[in-house]
């Protein structure tokens, strides 16, 4: 690491060289790519929050998005299942391909996209009007599935998948809001898993949880990647290092560096990445 220091302003104006294209090509040659993001830009009114980001998300791997607050990582992840459309004034350019189908193509229904790309949010948000059981099958039920046996199976399978079954199996009729914060978040994961998504997006899923609950979720992420591709936004670099296979570093709306987690954290190619992960700013 160089001894010279420079101010944040220098970082902003610094030319970001060598687009990440090479890294993507390296990944893209592998056919285990579930999602491919191509030159994605996001605007809120006139402000550009994400600047021409390209990235590949590999099947059954965990991809972590890190970067300082306001760097566009949350905006970016919300574009992967078109949730950002709920924000008034948001606009997207570029492509997001899921299994080679453009999620922003004409005739693609955001409802379908969200069924295939699930999401877990920062704050646990179980439906307060529903029991634990009803929360898990909300996606099914609100989509019109009524068969009791099917639903029972989904409840058990999803809760087991989210490592919550043993804690709630005797109390499935309890209100989802009565669980602890960590349990609520795992309930939300179970709810997202119940509809069998191909990709699971997690937007800082542990930021509202205590360390023990966080550890449980991290452990869960390890198990989940066997069945689902995971993209996780995190403020916590240790967490990114622990749970992810690939890491993307965002800064000021740009994707600065993207690569295998081990390499990015031990031998980053870019100066900004190094400064961020060593705690010099952010």
């Amino acid at each position, binding site marked *: 690491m160089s001894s010279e220091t420079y101010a944040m302003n220098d970082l902003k104006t610094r030319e970001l060289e060598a687009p990440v294209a090479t890294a993507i090509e390296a990944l893209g040659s592998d056919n285990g790519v579930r999602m491919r993001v191509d030159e994605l830009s996001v605007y809120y009114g006139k402000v550009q929050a994400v600047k021409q980001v390209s990235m590949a998300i590999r099947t059954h791997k965990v991809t972590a998005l890190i970067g300082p607050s306001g760097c566009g990582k949350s905006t970016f992840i919300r574009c992967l299942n078109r949730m950002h459309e709920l924000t008034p004034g948001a606009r997207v350019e570029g492509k997001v391909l899921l299994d080679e189908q453009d999620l922003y193509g004409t005739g693609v229904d955001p409802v379908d996209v969200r069924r295939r790309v699930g999401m877990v*949010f920062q704050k646990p*948000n179980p*439906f307060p009007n529903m029991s634990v059981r009803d929360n898990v099958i909300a*996606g099914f039920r609100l989509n019109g599935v009524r068969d009791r046996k099917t639903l029972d199976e989904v409840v058990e399978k999803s809760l087991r998948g989210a490592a919550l079954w043993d804690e709630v199996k005797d109390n499935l009729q309890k209100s989802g809001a009565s669980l602890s914060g960590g349990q609520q978040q795992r309930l*939300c994961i179970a709810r997202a898993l119940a509809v069998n998504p191909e990709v699971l997006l997690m937007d800082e899923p542990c930021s509202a949880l205590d360390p023990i609950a966080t550890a449980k979720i991290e452990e869960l992420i390890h198990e989940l990647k066997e069945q689902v591709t995971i993209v996780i936004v995190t403020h916590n670099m240790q967490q990114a290092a622990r749970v992810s296979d690939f890491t993307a570093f965002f800064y000021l709306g740009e994707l600065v560096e993207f690569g295998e987690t081990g390499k990015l954290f031990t031998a980053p190619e870019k100066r900004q990445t190094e400064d961020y992960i060593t705690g010099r700013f952010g």
Partner: protein
Amino acid sequence: MNRHFRFRKFVEWANWVGMLCCMSVSVFFLVAILGYVLVHGASYIDWEFLTAMPVPAGETGGGIANALVGSFLVVMVASLMALPIGIGAAIFINEFPSHGFGRTVRFLAEVLTGVPSIVVGLFAYALVVVPSGGFSAFSGSVAYAFIMVPIILITAQEALRLVPDSLREASLALGIPKWRTIMGVVLPVSSRALITGAVLAISRALGEAAPMLFTAFGNSFWNVNLTKPIATVPLLIYTYATGPYDDWHQKAWAASFVLLVVVLLTSVLTRAFLRGNSNE
């Protein structure tokens, strides 16, 4: 303790006493109204008063059964019209804000709550009574619905606004379409506040006499036909209170008491019901 400090203590005390007086006066009038109605009305109430038909002027006895049933019928039909419209409009302006005229609609609703109820009655007269060729219970319901819609709309929008966006996002992120998100999550989560607003609107309508004057019109006989004039309690109170007979005045007090009890019971029972529901 210097003089200045003592003076400030005095100002503090004087202000406190002033506000205490204001509070006492407002509570006094509330209690006075309730007490006066109770004293004058309660003694006249018996089973016959509630279940018997009115008797011709000058005779004693008889009751207000037709007006009770009439009020119930008119308000129920009004609710059937006002609740879907008010809640539907609230959903539209709160859940689809991109259409922009939500604020305008909300403003109009606020203005509408301030429109004198006699004007609402006149409007219903022009809208329903004149084209249909006669006074009717239904025209009364329309007048009541005009009073109820803005109240329901405003309370419902407040209720929907309090539903956290994170719940809408949670539902949409599961691939649940927007309309199902509204029906399955937003409305159930806000149901208590929605019910409270509906009861507020119903209580308000139950007590209004002015809009009934040239719509429901009143009726001394039994009627449950919506196309015919019908008796309602506030209208009966108005007729009896302005009539020349002492017995009528007695009955007006008694009917006022009944109306108060009904309105009070409605709120209390709703509260009890909502509280019972929360203890899951």
